[in-house]
């Protein structure tokens, strides 16, 4: 399960940015096409945060949906998985959102 490694990376990266403060809320962005399952991150978070200034913090996870733009007909359409096919039949498609895997902000005390 790569979510444990991903969550550990989040905790480590946030800890690097703290100088004695404690985190109350941590805001993340995990796109629906990112390959990371938000619920699995929530599940791993308590364990990864234990004993750190993030212990007990609340996670707020935004889940931007997949969006793609066709390079042939220029239509923009919703993408629920990485199998990208434009309604016009073209597979020459660019993903414009949904792959986000970012730490947005934190509320510290």
């Amino acid at each position, binding site marked *: 399960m790569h979510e444990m490694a*991903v969550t550990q990376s989040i905790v480590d990266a946030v800890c690097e940015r703290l100088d004695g403060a*404690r985190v109350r809320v941590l805001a993340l962005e995990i796109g629906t096409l990112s390959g990371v399952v938000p619920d699995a991150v929530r599940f791993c978070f308590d364990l990864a945060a*234990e004993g750190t200034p993030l212990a007990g913090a609340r996670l707020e996870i935004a889940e931007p949906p997949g969006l793609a733009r066709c390079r042939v007909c220029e239509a923009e359409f919703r993408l629920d998985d990485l199998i990208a096919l434009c309604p016009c039949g073209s597979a020459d498609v660019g993903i414009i*959102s949904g792959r986000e895997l*970012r*730490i947005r902000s934190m509320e510290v005390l």
Partner: protein
Amino acid sequence: MCATCGCSDPAGTRITQVTADTAAAPHLHDHGHGNGHGAGQAGTADEDTGETRTVLLEQQVLARNDRLAGANREWLGTRGVLAVNLMSSPGSGKTTLLERTIRELAGRPPVSVVEGDQESLIDAQRVRGTGCAAVQINTGAGCHLDAGMLGSALRELDPPPRSVVLIENVGNLVCPALFDLGEAHRVVIMSVTEGADKPLKYPHMFAAADLVLLNKVDLLPHLDFDPGFFESSVRRANPRAEVLRVSATGGEGIGIWCEWLRDRVTAGPGERGPARRDSGAADGVAR
């Protein structure tokens, strides 16, 4: 699991140089729990007033891995070493293909191998049997290699200039897709016994591939596997990936695969940029 924090990932990663006569005492590397795993820092004066403030971070979750991958790419680039990340589910034939490839290349160019498995030195010892240098990374409970592990393995391996480093990732069609190692190319191996619909079920892995090797084609006469459907499934997950049919035991396609590698060593390293995983605005491709 890691005794410090319970994380299942870098927990007890071991890197072992497997030599000709390995009695190989495992060689421990620190797993880098430097950050924030100390005793919780004491609250500041603000705690008394209960005031919180918002701090913008705006950074990639895998920024650290990507930084280390960039360092590996540079290290490999300055030496002219071509690193290829081989990924598949367990049993599709990665190690068998490595053994065959090393014999077929016959030192032109020289090959060395990084083996990733949760436990055991078995695969590195199999590869050592061909006479080529091999380092084993044992990830413990970890289900993928990351750029930090590859960096340590590369320093252990010290590959010669203008050579190839073949990396056998941990057998898993999901997790390794997310972690850039600093490789020049990603190759996904799938065998005909796994079912032709796998690219549609594991699109992340196939979307990240430069080349897909369909292995064990010697078994096709015994199976109900439609290679045409498989190839069209790969194209749906990744319109740019090349697909090559091979048999690591029978030898079919191995010559073409070796040429594919040779072309890329001579063409020079570092064609692949860092893995893309943001919204990918302008150049985000369905891959």
